[in-house]
């Protein structure tokens, strides 16, 4: 019998592949086919953080993420077809086509949503955590953002408050080294140790290899339990890298192609699992192939269904700006 750890690794592998193949579909099929609008921010290369952290969350926990949040949503169980449909702008999308790639959300899964306004998710995470605590839940909120977000005022205000009020939040920083084109050291004082910004607030700050899903999982477990039991927030900085452009329209001339290739060869988090599985001969490689085939089939099927889904009608736009059920709200004078 295989150990739990092996089962877990295989589950992580599947989880990462689901994200990778989902996003490769966006890149390889939807982009050339002009099947979505605006831009889509892919997390190819960063799947270990998504899977490692989200796997450490319990059912009562929540997450909020950034523009680069497909991975977190899928890891949390978002319906793949609904996600594809949303990105395609179909009425069956998880947000009925109103949100798109940057606004995926799923209330029933504890996904507060993607918040592409950099930094603004941090206070919302803190507020959500306070709500959980005040309502007697033991839930924790994981807040995902890139290393660019740590220089926003919103992040700072939120971390201070989370520390001060002992809120169950884990601030998860995916340091993929760039904010669009701006390298971390061009944007952040003391860029080599951004996790130490936590010290000023008296909370723990850790820097971890974000390409090793097992390490990600372990530290996340610890941080989430600390938040859950002691109400102490943490600041986890995962070193990672995005193997693709900032978004699907990025020329990427701000970084050498070599760098990308080298990172990909050396640190792809999915290869990492494949290598460690192979090195340790713990499972038959055909099992990995089988998983890959299954995931590919899942992605293809979800994609095909989404592609066949209906468009919203133009007038659907007009609904939903207001909740109109509330007793006292009389809507006579709403402007046209």
């Amino acid at each position, binding site marked *: 019998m295989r150990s739990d750890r092996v089962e877990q690794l295989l589950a992580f592998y599947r989880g990462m592949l689901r994200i990778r193949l989902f996003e490769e579909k966006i890149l390889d099929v939807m982009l050339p086919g002009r099947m979505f609008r605006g831009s889509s921010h892919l997390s190819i290369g960063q799947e270990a953080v998504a899977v490692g952290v989200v796997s450490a969350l319990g059912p009562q926990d929540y997450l909020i993420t950034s523009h680069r949040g497909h991975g977190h949503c899928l890891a949390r169980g978002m319906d793949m077809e609904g996600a594809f449909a949303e990105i395609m702008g179909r009425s069956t999308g998880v947000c009925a086509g109103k949100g798109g790639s940057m606004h995926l959300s799923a209330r029933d899964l504890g996904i507060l949503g993607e918040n592409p*306004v950099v930094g603004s998710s941090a*206070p919302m995470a803190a*507020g959500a955590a306070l*709500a959980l605590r005040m309502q007697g839940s033991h839930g924790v909120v994981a807040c995902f953002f890139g290393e660019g977000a740590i220089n926003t005022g919103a992040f700072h205000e939120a971390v201070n408050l989370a520390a001060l009020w002992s809120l169950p939040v884990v601030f998860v920083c995916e340091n993929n080294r760039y904010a669009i084109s701006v390298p971390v050291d061009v944007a952040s004082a003391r860029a080599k140790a951004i996790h130490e910004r936590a010290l000023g607030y008296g909370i723990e700050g850790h820097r971890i290899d974000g390409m090793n899903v097992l390490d990600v999982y372990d530290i996340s477990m610890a941080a989430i339990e600390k938040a859950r039991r002691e109400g102490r927030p943490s600041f986890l900085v995962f070193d990672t890298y995005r193997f693709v452009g900032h978004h699907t329209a990025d020329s990427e001339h701000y970084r050498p192609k070599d760098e990308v290739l080298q990172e990909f060869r050396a640190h792809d988090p999915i290869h990492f699992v494949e290598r460690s599985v192979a090195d340790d001969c713990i499972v038959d490689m055909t099992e990995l192939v089988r998983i890959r085939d299954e995931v590919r089939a899942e992605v293809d099927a979800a994609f095909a269904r989404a592609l066949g889904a209906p468009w919203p009608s133009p007038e659907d736009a007009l609904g*939903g700006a207001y909740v109109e059920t509330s007793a006292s709200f009389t809507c006579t004078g709403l402007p046209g």
Partner: protein
Amino acid sequence: MSDPQAMRNITYAQAIRTALREEMKRDERVVLWGEDIGVYGGVYGATTGLQREFGTERVRDTPISEMAIVGMGVGAALLGLRPVVEIMYEDFLAHAADGVVNQAAKWGYMSGGQYRVPLVVRSPGGGGSGYAAQHSQNLEAWFAHIPGLIVVATCMPRDARGLLKAAIRDDNPVVFLEHKGHYTYKGDVPRDEEVLPLGKADIKRPGRDVTIVAWSKALVAALSAADELASEGIDAEVIDPRTLLPLDMDTILASVGRTRHLVVVSESHAYCGVSAEISAQVCERAFGELKRPPKRVGSHFVPLPYSEPMESYVIPDAARVAEAVRGLLA
């Protein structure tokens, strides 16, 4: 309810406090946070005693972190609390505008209706107290321009209590604008519970000759002007829209249909203000009924100066309102 026995004569601050207290007793999901709202009771006394009564969990003093005050409010509202947060001066909503406008106003819509944001953001604006340009603005027009928000601006105790209660119960985010120069203003408020409808104007003074639409503290100037004009034989109707988004144009249009004259009065600048909307809508929708083009009266278009002679010149008073009405009817 209209039995005068059943009234209490209380200040605007007390009215707001009453609404908060009643709603906090009624619904334990209602929580308050903001700067100095606890022990201090708010710099204008609107929350006096509430921390003592409801404890430090439900009534929280925050750091000076306007972005987080509102941002946390949004997050907490998504997960079932009904936060009423205070931004100490309306001017500092400029620090918190992302939370109000990009997050609270849009989260429900963007999620395809999965979420709602029952958040109230209270904030006092307005001049007249010598606080100068950065502590006196009236920014209702900003928020009234944003779909997804409800915007209340009211200065009468009864309205403040009844509409704040409605705002707290409403599942939409509400920007509830108060006037810092009005917290000690007194008025009758029913002893019994009263929840007033959002989106309904109130005719504060019926009249036949001219419709004056005025809100927040400018309403007081409008009412005095109406008294002054009455002695000259001009019978002004004064309408307080109370809610600026949605706006009760039905009441305004019906009034203009009777009086055939319109003056819109606000302490905020008329230029690109809510008063422009009202003037424009009346012209667009009741063009034939107007005998004369509408007039708008607002603060002169400068930052608010500190010194008294200048400040009171900039902010419209009863004399300026009366003058505008006389000019219109002449």
